[in-house]
């Protein structure tokens, strides 16, 4: 955890259960709809239900996130090996390193790591998207609990670099 001159904290979060699902919405819904929250209608938004979140993060592309303790159950439910040819279900929990940024100055801190417009009118509570984070591709979602802030994820191999970024920005 990095304590900063800014009134905000940036901390590395634990591994999450993450599944990348690709396929047409109707096919995805047919295969996994009953096991997941409703698929978000709008791109770059996510629906959250019972600890599960599903983000519409690109054309025919969805990202399912859940606490890591639910990974085995989700694997069983989504059954990647049995998914029809029209749907890809790929466990990618280890591909991402997650970070939480929160606090009064979280917006100021985030303005230093991403070019995305994070104003609430543009990036509302259910917003979630892939974008540029610390100069690399990353996933970004608004976080409302336990306090206002952001959840971001980058390729796991870049985790130390992102920690270094935060240390330099906020140190």
């Amino acid at each position, binding site marked *: 955890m990095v304590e900063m*001159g*800014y009134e905000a904290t940036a901390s590395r979060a634990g*591994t999450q259960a993450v599944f*990348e699902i*690709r*396929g047409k919405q109707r096919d995805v819904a047919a295969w996994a709809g009953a096991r997941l929250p409703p698929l978000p209608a709008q791109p770059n938004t996510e629906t959250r239900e019972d600890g599960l979140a599903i983000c519409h993060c690109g054309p*025919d592309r969805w990202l399912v996130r859940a606490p890591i303790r639910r990974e085995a159950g989700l694997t069983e439910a989504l059954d990647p*090996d049995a998914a029809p*040819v*029209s749907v*890809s279900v*790929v*466990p*990618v*929990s*280890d*591909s*991402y390193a997650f970070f939480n940024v929160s606090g009064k100055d979280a917006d*100021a801190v985030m*303005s*230093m790591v*991403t*070019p*995305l*417009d994070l*104003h609430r009118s*543009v990036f509302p509570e259910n917003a979630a998207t892939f974008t540029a984070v*610390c*100069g*690399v591709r990353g996933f970004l979602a608004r976080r409302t609990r336990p306090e206002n802030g952001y959840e971001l994820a980058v*390729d*796991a*191999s*870049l*985790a*130390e*670099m992102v920690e*270094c*970024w935060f240390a*330099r*920005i906020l140190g």
Partner: protein
Amino acid sequence: MTAAERRLASGGGIDRSRPLRFTFDGRPYRGFEGDTLASALLAEGVDIIGRSFKYHRPRGVIGAGVEDPACLVELAGRAASGNQQAATVRLRDGLAATSVNCWPSPELDAAGIIGAFSRLLPAGFYYKTFMWPGWRYYEPWIRRAAGLAAAPATPAEGRFETRHAHADVLVVGAGPAGLSAALAAAGSGARVVLVDDNRVPGGALLNRRLGIGGAPAEEWAAKAGGELAAMDNVTYLCDATAWGYREHNLVLVVQRNPETPDVIERSWKVRARRVVIATGAHERPLVFANNDRPGAMLASAVQAYVNRYAVLPGTTAVVFTNNDSAYGAAADMAAAGIDVAAIVDSRKDVPGAARALVGGTEILAGQVVTEAHGRRRVRSVSAGDPAGGTMRRIACDLLAHSGGWNPVVHLHCQSRGTLRFDDTIAAFVPKDAAQPAAVAGAAAGLPSLGDALADGAAKGAGAAEAAGFRALSRPLPECRDQPYAVEPLWLAVAPGREDRSFLDILNDVTVDDVRLALREGYRSIEHVKRYTTGGMGFDQGKTGNANIIGTVAHVKGIAVPEAGFTTFRPPYVPVAFGAVAGARTGPVVLPFRHTPVTAWNIEQGAVMYEAGGRWRRPGYFPKPGESFQDSVDRECRSVRQRVGVYDGSPLGKFEIKGRDALRLLDLVYTNDFSDLAPGKGRYGLMLTDDGMILDDGVTFRIDEHRYLMTTSTANAETVNRHLERILQVDRRGWDVRITTLTSEWCNATICGPRARDVMKALATDIDIDRDAFPFMHFRSGSVAGLPARVFRVSFTGEVSFEVNVRRRHFRSLWDRVMDAGRRFGIEPVGSEASHVLRTEKGFLSLGHEADGTVDPHDLGMSWIMSRKKADFIGKRAVEIRRSSGEPRRELVGLLPDDPEQAIPEGAPLTPGGSKRASEGLTTACVRSVVNDRWIALALLENGRERIGGTAHARTRTRIIPARIAAPCFHDPEGRLLRG
């Protein structure tokens, strides 16, 4: 006049209750909060602040802001910085500044002698004179003698930041038009970012004595600024300058002295839906002999120092003008106590309103100042009728001159907006915008205060409405203004004095230089700029451009618009590199990637560096007393004789699924994948559209419609983009989906004759016998109690097991591999040893043998070019290229005649080692442990036909003969790796 007499007892925007101490060239001085370094130095009686760029002429303060072209300083200490404009440096306690381009001091500059020879040093002199034996021999000396400040020896104390911001409306400038625009836009509810380079709002209103709404104009500005700062939808960046205007309304801003502790400067990248450019206008100098002498200042600057900083830059002044605005300046000077000896106006008819401002002051209408006199400071001027007659000498220590006003069109032009020449104000003004932007107020060519307020309000409201908001009408305040009229005057130079009449004061460009450029045939204004350097550098022609253009037009006898204008480039003001970089410095200047065993590698003393794809990998693992070569040899021997393990995690990995997955593979790979059975893998080569090798790797079939593709480390992202482009652009209807798994699965590659023993010792439920688990197959199961996918692939030429586990398990796997392998003599292997091992086998490496110029035939891989498939990417290009029959460079091995002689990688091969065009190059050269000698791979013209012959590598110091051999030095039949 003493220093005390130069500072007025009252008035101005300085805070006399907060005195500040600072040093300049080591001498102590005092100023006040609210001063700039320039105003404080003026108040302390410092006339010469630096020496000029080329001729080392003494230079003093000319302007009162970013337009000042003369006074660069170096700052030391906390905010150490190379080239800062004294007129924009905010004074603070303890500030330490030094002058630029002079030694030992600005007053006694040893290089000042150069000025005496200025006639011999015209534009282009250096490039014409210092040609032989080469410019490079002279350049360091010339650069030392001429130019700008050096970069600080130590970094600034503190840090820089870069922030992104977004706005519905960005307003640049908080003068009357900018404030008016911001108020109108913000009132609509739009998100407004207001940027201004002053610490307080008002712009030019701060320097003049005007009225708005029945009160002094600066009070209106302060109120408007306060109103804006209090609005939630407004971000007001003061002490900040917009210095670059990029595509898609991205405006770059540097903010000085932000409120965050230890942040020196903050850079903002503001993306706006609409931009209102309200950057005002710069006064342009008049051109006469010695117009750069300390004491010769822009009239508006004198007015600013008097009104805003309560400083008298002189005691007796002559005002030289061709327009009305200088009369207001003269009135303010007189009111402050400066004796205005005369106003020299090049216009024969001076408007009555202008005369009324300076009742009682002598006005010399229809006359010009042709020369300023005085060595270190203006002592008098010569004035008279430009048509001829007697010149009158007028004693003065201050010459305030005004050649009219140039709208500040830099940002507009950077955004690719166009200009037109406006005859009524004799200046270039914005014409068409190229991006969603509007120019308001004086920047748009509207010199009157009332027009600026109205135009700003209209442009601000228009911008908000264009961004989707409803602007409310807001009554415009009444204002008290001064009239403005101008008659252009481009030159007021007496014959023979044009070499001392400066057009671009920053770059020491004189009227003579422009005449020379035109005589030498530089007709385009852009060419004149390049030849003379006029308008270049940090100044970007703020004060010089219009005069250069006017002079060109005058000399050529054409109208000013016909002369054209030059390109304005960013940055608009000097910007520290640190502000551009922000946090992206030091270890994060470029991204870096780690695997889960990076810490382990470092603990083992590995020498780490990037080995492609931004991955930091171990190069080698030195042991105490070992040389680099000792370490690499030891690691190679472990693989060839016992067992080694390397971290293959960075290899690109992609899951490809869909009904058309096989079609995709057959399109991108040169060989046929249609008969690849589930559980098996196949090596493949990808070509670019022009038939050159893009990447290689092994793809495994998981089930009927699912594949796992591996790529090289460095090209993983390139391949991903290549595949996505095909699916998203070229073959949109194909049913294929790609998921990146590079970081999901990490692999420990166990290789060597004892690799199978280590696998057994690890305990696995996979049958790893040769026949049960052959080469180029994969199996899923458990290894060391961890769920794993194991691949039989080899990049070393030895028996290999690539054990892939989820990232979370990798460190655990690695520790267990090292434990299990200990009794078999396992060693970790770095990328240097991998390079040796693959070179011994003749396996291609992207970036070495596949350097973007070769096709598979060149590498002896014709077997991989399918004749069965109708098409694949690159096929046609290869066929067309090879149909020409031109000789190709082909992969061969090289054995230096001296087995202990290395050939530098990249060394050219030339016929007989002679100094002729190369016939190839050395792509790799390593010391082979199995051959106990140096071996190399090379691309050599018609190489395969020449096997058995001799090639010659040519280096700077020697010619290295080498026998040409087949490009494989170890187990050419491949029996070991299949074992």
